[in-house]
Each structure stands twice: as structure tokens, then as C-alpha cells.
């Protein structure tokens, strides 16, 4: 496994800033809330970068900017030709539809083709441990079951850079352990990961480097 020092950056963040409009209309001037500004760092191939900071520091916003979901107000995110995905749990779930349909749809939204999604379906069903419930509408699921299905769908995704936003708190204790085990396996393959967490201890335990919003 290559060490970080000789790896090349896959994403470069330069002077990034995002602000949100707080209020304002035709008759009132807009007021803005600056989430963060002047953020610069490099993300290297194969590393696990932890991001910590207090609530509202902009951790999730930063991930969305890295994923290309939102455009920053200032600065740039330079992608050196890699695929980036935010691991979104239960993306696009529809309570009226059975688990199978939701799994396929969610997988497609995350970037699979329909064929890939269909092929993965048995694996997803098995990992989620839902059994016959896979064919029941998701609205009949407990929140833990939904979380399990959501995680199982997202788990198979392997973009060049995977962005994780507090995803390890899913399901009951048994499943959480299983989810963590899988996720850590990913972290220790050559997968590049950006990992957001409230728990500084967890970040220390899992990450090669830490980016701390509170020390900006």
C-alpha cells in the first residue's frame, strides 16, 4: 500500500467559501450567513481524511461542495479527474414501494446502472438481513430496518473518492457493528475517503489526517 507522502492529490480545495442566504425578498436586502471561507487543503489518493468541527461549522456543506452537488461562492474545488460520491443513505426512498424497488432506485440515484443495481439486489437483501420484508412496502419497516436497507444499498458503491457524513450510526447494535466493520474495510483498502464525524475520538481512531474546522 502506498504511503501518503508519495501519492498525488486527487482533489485540491483552494480558498473555498460558502454562504447561505438567510433572509431577503424583493423589498428587503438579503442577509447572508457565511458558513466558512478561505478553506484550502489537498486530498491525496488512498488516504482517509477526517473532518471534525462543531455543529453548523459547515462539515456537511464542505462534503457537498466536494461532491460537486453545490457550487461554492468563492474559491474552487479542483477535481483531478476522479469520481466523487457522497454516500447518501435512503436516497429517494418511497414508503409505498417494496424494499426491492427502493433498493434499485436508490442504487440508480447513487450512480449504478439499472443492470448493476439489479445484479446487486441479492447481495443488498442479504446484507440488510431483511428476508421476506424485502417485498413489503418500506412504510411498514421500522426505522432500523430502513436504515439497514439504506446502508446496504450505499455500501457497495465504490467511487474513487467516497464522502461519508456520519453514516456509521445505523440500525441496532449488531448491525452497527457490521456496518462499521464493512466501512472500515473500505477505509483500509485503497479507497480515498473523506469522513465527517462529531466524535473526535472516532476520527483519531480511523483517519490518516484530520481537518478541524474549529482550528481554522
Amino acid at each position, binding site marked *: *500500500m502506498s*504511503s*501518503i507522502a508519495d501519492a498525488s492529490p486527487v482533489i485540491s480545495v483552494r480558498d473555498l467559501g460558502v454562504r*447561505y*442566504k438567510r433572509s431577503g425578498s424583493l423589498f428587503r436586502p438579503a442577509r447572508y450567513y457565511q458558513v466558512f471561507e478561505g478553506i484550502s487543503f489537498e486530498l491525496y489518493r488512498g488516504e482517509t481524511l477526517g473532518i471534525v468541527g462543531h455543529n453548523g461549522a459547515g462539515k456537511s456543506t464542505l462534503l*457537498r461542495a466536494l*461532491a*460537486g*452537488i*453545490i*457550487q461554492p461562492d468563492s474559491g474552487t474545488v479542483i477535481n483531478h479527474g476522479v*469520481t466523487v*460520491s*457522497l454516500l*447518501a443513505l435512503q*436516497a*429517494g426512498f*418511497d414508503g*409505498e*414501494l417494496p424494499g426491492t*424497488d427502493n433498493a*434499485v*432506485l436508490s442504487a*440508480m*440515484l*447513487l*450512480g*449504478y*446502472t*439499472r443492470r*448493476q443495481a439489479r445484479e*446487486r439486489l441479492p447481495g443488498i437483501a442479504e446484507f440488510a438481513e431483511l428476508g421476506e420484508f424485502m417485498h413489503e*412496502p418500506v412504510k411498514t419497516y421500522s426505522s432500523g430496518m430502513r436504515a439497514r436497507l439504506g446502508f446496504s444499498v450505499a455500501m*457497495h*458503491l*465504490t*467511487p*474513487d473518492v467516497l464522502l461519508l457524513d456520519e453514516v456509521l450510526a445505523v440500525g441496532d447494535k449488531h448491525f452497527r457493528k457490521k456496518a462499521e*466493520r464493512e466501512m*472500515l*474495510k*473500505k477505509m*483500509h*483498502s485503497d*479507497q480515498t475517503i473523506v469522513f465527517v464525524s462529531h466524535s473526535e475520538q472516532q476520527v483519531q*481512531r*480511523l483517519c*490518516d489526517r484530520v481537518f478541524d474546522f474549529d482550528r481554522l
Partner: protein
Amino acid sequence: MAPRQIQPFEPLPAQDDRLAPQDAFQWARDAMAARQWETAARRWATLRAVYPDQPPVWIQAAVAYKQLGRHDAAAGFLAEARRRFPSHPGGWVQGANVALARGDHGEAARLLAEARCRFPDDPPVWLRSAGLALADGDPDAALVYNRHVREAFPDDPGGPIQYAELAMEAGDWEEALARWALVRERFPDLPAGYRRAADAQDRLGRPREARRLRLAEEYGADWLAETDQDPPSPVAPPQRRNGRNFLDLVLTKARLNLKSEANRNHLRYLWWVLDPLLYMAVFYVVFGMLLHRGGEGFVAYLLTGLVPFQWFAKTVQHASNTIVEGRGLMNQVRVSPLFFPLVAVAQNAGKQSLVFLMLAVFLIFYGLPPTPHWLALAPVVALQLLLMVVVGCALAMLIPFVRDLLNLVPTGLQFLLFCSGVFYTLDTIPERWRDLFLANPMANLLHQYRRILLEHQWPDWGQLGWLALASLFGLALVLLAYRRLEGVFPRVVVE
């Protein structure tokens, strides 16, 4: 005899109902485990008074004293232990430890040599001998003793652990890693196999590997082995979805939306037929039966206009707010915002197919059977679809920025209903306004539908061509705008 909890200041139980020695010793062992050596030494002293015939009260007391640096006292207890319990190797092994701690290597060597003769089947004796050899600066002799442990006592973890520690001691980290791997293989539950290997990785400047080993202590050797393997056939999403996958996504979502919609009702899919049927029935009753308006064939005229117009109105109404409604998903996954209005268009098109089918049935019963001209419905329907894509996407794009516009959509559609000639015929419009009237794309399309369905004529290809051209131009503008706004929508919709 019921075990009793012994409190530190409680008088000890009388001789005849003593605790089993192992239960009583736990009291002192707890202090040892907490590394409270002073307390431990005192507790062993107390226990010694009650159980003088048990080796631990002598040997463990010596261990506690050794930790306190009181080597003489420790040596005294161990000498006594050797005298009292000649068949117990602890007196010798610990004796060697204490001698080593005092720097008296000669005494340590003497004790261990004696122990090796007396207790050749006790692994600690050999391990300690290896430790002494190492302390004497003779790693080769240490290896010899260690090999004896590993070969003679394969089930004792001490041998492999010491084997790895010897490599650590020598600073041969790679060799140590290999030896720790053997420890993990034989004894996967021992923390040392992971922790000390992680230390070796740290020394080699590989913090990532070190972390992996520390995590493996928690997740087990299987996990470690699995991380060594290549991940099973990774599925990498493309940088951007290509057109085909995007279309597939839109159609899949639309299909599932329809399924979901149907699941919500008891009559399920039947509603897609019932709803337009009721709607058409209302117009039939009011205009065809009650008002007797428009004369012969007016109901057919009305429905051939109303059905396509309702399709347009429902689609546009539905699509207009989709981007705002899709804010959750939009902030979760990277998907072109076009996805949202297009799903609405596709979803309504799916339902509309049934309505068109019913209209066809009605026309046949009404005495307007199919003619070859019906083939021309295909381009007309396609053009209407294109028009709805343009209008729906344009509205969905504008509404996140000017939410108030949403309030105008129903009114606007109502206005369009009256401007498109659903209720009146083209000849009721003065000649000089007709071009302007037909410039309204919906009015024009309805006119074409009626030429085909009612008049059994081919549509006006010229007008259709112009309309298609204008729609394609609109489509290009909309696509361009969406491309530019892609990263903006997810923020605007939550603001």
C-alpha cells in the same frame, strides 16, 4: 459453603469456615490488578496468616514487594516458597526475576538452571531463561530457549509472543511483524498479536497499517484477512451519468412513482381510467346533454381538445414545483436537476396513454372510426411531449428563484384553457386573429388533433414544423440554463 464478600476491615472468617483459597486470594489479586502494590502486599500478608500452606501467599507477596522495589523482602519470601513448595516452579521463576531486578545475574542463572532440572515441563521456566539470556546479551541462547518452548509447548502462547518480542528487541521490525502474524494465526484472541504488531508498524513509519492492526484487535482476525483481499468487483459510478443511464433513471423513477401512486388507493390502477372518465362524463353531461351547445358532434370536438389539454395542464402543474420538492434528494446525490421535471413529464405521459386509449374507444363508438390519418398522431403527440418538457422544465427552473410564480401556474393554465379553443371552434375567431390564435402552441396542437381525429385530414405539416423548431430552440435554452444552474439549485431550494 456460600461465598462471602470480604470487606477490607471486616474481621477474617474463623478457621473452620474459611473461604476456598482461590476465592480469598481474589481480594489480593484485585489490588495487584489495580497495581496497588502496597495494598496488595498487605492483603497477601493477611492471607498468609490464614493460608500459610498455599504457594501464592508467598510468591505473589514477593511479586508485590518486587514492584515496590523491596527486593530483599521479596527474595526472602521466595526462598521460603522454594523451601515450602519444592514442586512449585514459581519460587524459582520469580526468584530469578527478583535476582535480575537486583542485578544479580549469577543468582538468577543459578535459580533458572535448577528450575530447568526440576521443572522441565513448565514453560515459564524456559521463557524466563530466554529472558535472562537476552538480559545477559546473548540473544542466540535466548533463541535456543525460546525455540524449546515453541516446540515443546505448542499450545502455550508465551513462546510465539516471546519469539516476536525478541525480534522487536533486536529492532528487526519486519521480522517482528512476520512473527506477530504467526501469533495472530495461532492465537487470534490475544491482543498482543495486534497491538505489538501495530507498534512495529509505527516504528516502520506506517501509521495507516498500524491503525489497521489496532482496529483488527476490535474486529478480529477475519476482518484483517478480508481487508488484505481485493474488494469484490468494485462498482464505480461514471463521472457523470451518460444520456442513456439518465433516461433510464428518469423512466424507472416515473414507473415506480406510478406504482407508488397506485398503491396508495384501494382501487389502485383503476383510478387512472376512472378519473379521466369522470372528467369526460362531466363535460358530456353539461355540454352534450344539458346545454345542447355547439350542435352535432360538439362532444367529440370538446373531448378531442380537452383530453390533450388536460394532459398538458396536469403535466405542467405537476412539473412546476418538482425542483423545490426534490430538495432533499438534490442535496443527497449528484443528479441533474432536469431529473425532477422530466420524471413528472414521464409519469403523466404514462397515465395519459390510458386516457388516449379511452378517447379512441369513445370516438369509435361516436361514429368516428380510425383512419390512416391517425398515424399522424404520433408526431403530434411527440411534439406535445416536447412542448411539455420545455414548459415544464422552464417553470420548474424559475420557481425556485421566484417562488411566488407557483401561485400563478393554475391561473395561467386556466387562461391557456380558454385561449386554446377547447370550447369553441376556429371559425368563431375573426379571420385576422386566427394567425395570432394559432401562434399559441397549445391552440395549434389542438387544432392538429382535431384535423386528424374529427376531419380525417393530415395535420398542417408546415405549422407543425415551425412549432417543432420553436420547441427545439426552447429546449436548447432550457438545457443550457440547467447546465449552468446545476450547482445552484441545491442551495437555492433550501434558502
